[in-house]
């Protein structure tokens, strides 16, 4: 019933509008034309110019007011070393673009108002001015060149090789979550093979590589403050993107093409909780490449610890190797590596080899 009323109301409103339109049309026809009115210029020409200036003024005031009052809402605290540098370039670019933006809009709407039609006026025949055109070709070119050069230096640093001794963590995106893998005691990540993936071996650890036997896979990304962290990134099914706006960090996770990103976190989670006054604050790992139905829910938690906290966390975790938690997979380890694997992973109870050989392979 309510729907019907709404429909009827809409129809009535439309009917009223159409009637108003037709009445004004008829009035226009009947109304005698003023003698001095210019037949070619629609009435209300000046009003349009005034509206333009009004729009300009209200728009610019609104822009500056909101940008200033809400600064902390849209400008997230920076928590990585390179973030400070990119942020500086961001704001330099911002100053330049806002200047150009405001000046050109003032000219655009200002000229529209100032040079609106007046009967006694005649437009100035001004087809070109080479000097002027040269100026506004060269000036933007120079400014842009400067922006490019300052950007490229940083770009090559950020995307260049990670410093020696970076913490290496593997991040894998899959529908719709993240998995993390640490190299364990030996400091090396073991090989992976997507054909080894199954419900338990989520990351496809290839157990024929001994370097993987001590790898461990916590449920969070835990990284130390003040030390370069190198994320080795891959996607398991479709493209995902490893993104966190606080670190100003982003890199796609592509199936079949490993990528990486390194950065130095500068603020620990605990410090952020204090700074933001939010005791539940967490850095969040955001998926930023459309990946399917639950794309918007694909979240990981990143915890930044002080170096000493991190060391003790790591020590604790490296006892929980993946192989130790899933000893069934010992069956996939080649016979000659088995003993080393048991030691590396810290498995205490040895399964009967004959039993375990039947299960565990990926297909």
């Amino acid at each position, binding site marked *: 019933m309510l729907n019907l009323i709404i429909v009827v109301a809409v129809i009535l409103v439309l009917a009223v509008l159409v009637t108003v339109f037709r009445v004004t049309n008829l009035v226009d026809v009947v109304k005698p034309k003023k003698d001095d009115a210019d037949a070619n210029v629609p009435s209300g020409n000046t009003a349009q110019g005034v509206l333009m200036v009004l729009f300009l003024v209200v728009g610019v005031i609104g822009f500056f007011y909101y940008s200033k009052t809400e600064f902390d809402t*849209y400008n997230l605290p920076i928590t990585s070393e390179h973030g400070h540098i990119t942020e500086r370039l961001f704001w330099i670019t*911002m100053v330049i673009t806002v200047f150009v933006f405001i000046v*050109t809009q003032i000219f655009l709407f200002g000229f529209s108002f100032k*040079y609106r039609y007046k009967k006694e006026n*005649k437009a*100035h025949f001004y087809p070109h*001015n080479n000097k002027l*055109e040269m100026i506004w070709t060269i000036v933007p070119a120079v400014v842009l060149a400067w922006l490019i050069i300052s950007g490229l230096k940083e770009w090559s640093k950020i995307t260049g090789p990670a410093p020696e001794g970076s913490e290496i963590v593997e991040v894998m995106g899959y529908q719709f979550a993240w998995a993390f893998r640490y190299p364990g005691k030996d400091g090396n990540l073991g090989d992976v093979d997507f054909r080894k993936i199954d419900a338990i071996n989520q990351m496809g650890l290839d157990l024929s590589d001994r370097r993987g036997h001590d790898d461990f896979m916590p449920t969070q990304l835990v990284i130390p403050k003040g030390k370069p962290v190198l994320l080795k990134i891959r996607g398991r099914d479709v493209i995902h*993107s490893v993104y966190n706006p606080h670190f100003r960090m982003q890199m796609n996770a592509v199936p079949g093409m490993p990528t990486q990103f390194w950065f130095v976190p500068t603020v620990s989670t605990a410090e952020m909780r204090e700074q933001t006054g939010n005791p539940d604050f967490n850095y969040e790992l955001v998926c930023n490449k459309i990946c399917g139905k639950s794309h*918007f829910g694909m979240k990981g938690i990143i915890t930044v610890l002080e170096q000493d906290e991190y060391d003790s966390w790591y020590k604790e975790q490296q006892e929980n190797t993946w192989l130790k938690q899933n000893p069934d997979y010992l069956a996939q380890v080649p016979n000659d590596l088995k003993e080393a694997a048991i030691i590396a992973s810290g498995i205490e109870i040895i399964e009967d080899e004959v039993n375990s050989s039947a299960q565990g392979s990926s297909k």
Partner: protein
Amino acid sequence: MSVTDIQLQQDTAGHDDHHDDHEHAQSFVTKYIFSTDHKTIAKQFLITGIFWALLGGILSVIFRLQLGFPEMQLEWLRPFLGQWITPEGQLDQEFYLALVTMHGTIMVFFVLTAGLSGTFSNFLIPLQCGARDMASGFMNMLSYWFFFLSSVVMFVSMFIETGPASGGWTIYPPLSALPQAMSGSGLGMTLWLVSMALFIVSTLLGGINYITTVINLRTEGMSFSRLPLTIWAFFITAVLGLLSFPVLFSAALLLIFDRSLGTSFYLSDIYIAGEALPHLGGSPILFQHLFWFLGHPEVYIVILPALGITSEIISTNSRKPIFGYKAMIGSMLGIGFLSFIVWAHHMFITGMNPFLGSIFTILTLIIAVPSAIKAFNYITTLWKGNIIFTPAMLFSIGLVSFFISGGVTGLFLGNSVLDINLHDTYFVVAHFHLVMGSAAFFGMLAGVYHWFPKMFGRMMNDKLGKLHFWLSFVGIYMVFFPMHYIGIAGFPRRYYAFTSFDTFSGFADLNALVSIAAILTLGAQFIFLFNFFYSIFRGKLAPANPWKSNTLEWTTPRFPEHGNWPGAIPKVYRWAYDYSKPGAKDDFIPQTVPYSHTPESNLDHENEEAKNEDLTGVEKSE
């Protein structure tokens, strides 16, 4: 200069100013449906484009409802969306992505490529070049009907059980290649690819025609240096399309192979839905390279015609020559060329070699220079003009405003190091919706308002046009300007909701504002629709040259027949921008007026030219 005179037989039979359907032997079908008249084909493109624009707009409002009011009960949409409304009365999460994808596909390809180029290239190229029709009227007709077919396929894909394509309008594999990844990648994606293949055929048929017509069928005296900027824009656009769309076709073809024939062009090392796929050695990045090799020229395919239309309208209504005619052409050529070598700026953080990122940053920021020149030239054209605010003029000024607002943010996104944090956030959404989406859309509307009198022989209502402009202009800024803030805060695009992340808990107010503004903006378009269809039948009859414009189309009768000019094709003696020339009696001198008739206003070199003019067939004015 080649002289072209393809006088059509039917033109010799009775050509008066009165329009009479029964006078010609054409049936309804050949006149309005399978017509080879470029004017009719243009109108077909326009009306199909309007249909798609409305649909695309409605889709966007549906997903804006979700984003602005996540808790809203959408049960009332069930009659339209059926199973896509969940039992709880919410929008289905996957359908949300389908909406986003279809909105993008429809707006970029069906509205702003076919609807814009299809309409105005078709309508204006013969009329402004002085040709009786396109080089091949038949191919032109095919171009529309391939587009129509493509539209039907795309439309049908929205009603299938598994939903339309939903991997984003950029259809990146593996997401788009694997039905296991999302249901929209099943039949919906197949239909999307079929539709796009047909669409590409349509674009190529059209493009070849536009290029050939501009090169070969200009009237006597219409040298390239006298062509209106509209035609230059359409010409360059057509060349871009011709060079880039085949690459999209090949990208789509390889995707079809990967989907259906088990090849591994884009797929490798994939484990999905509990099984490892046999694909090895492919690269998803390859698709992105191929896609953006079209995709980037595509944004210029969208914006250049709009800029061309704007050049013409701003000049006419400022009563001033366009400032820097040659610089405008040079900029368009520069943009056209550079648009082919900037594509990878869409891919800075895909894992592409960072060195490539540096190269593409440089090339991308170079393209900002010709774009800036164009904006400055528009503003200088307004300077010391005598501006008449027709609705077309308002929309053109709006276009320039959007072009600047959206253009400056390109300096952030084109800079690889800044793109790290802004990539795929709402900052990008704001950027391209302003610089390309809204600007091109305004160009299209400006064109409709300006050439409506020529298309339908009647005037659109001026007041409604202005109301439409202000509501749209303010509305669009209210939709897209706040998105910059949301984007700087890192909000990712293509998110169904931001509830999962504490980082994105803010801006509920801005998102609601954006949604309300989007609804109002869509609502304002109904004013246009009413004005458009009402004026076709009931508008005031148009005078011969309502805007006092110089270009050739205004020398045709009010209702031009197929063949455009009843008599001989007019000759052209000057460029299209002799507005307010010092000494001249009127503030405009049409292109058909020889220099020898206007000694009072000629410049020195023009007096020289006047001596050599061939005046046969020109009656002396006054």
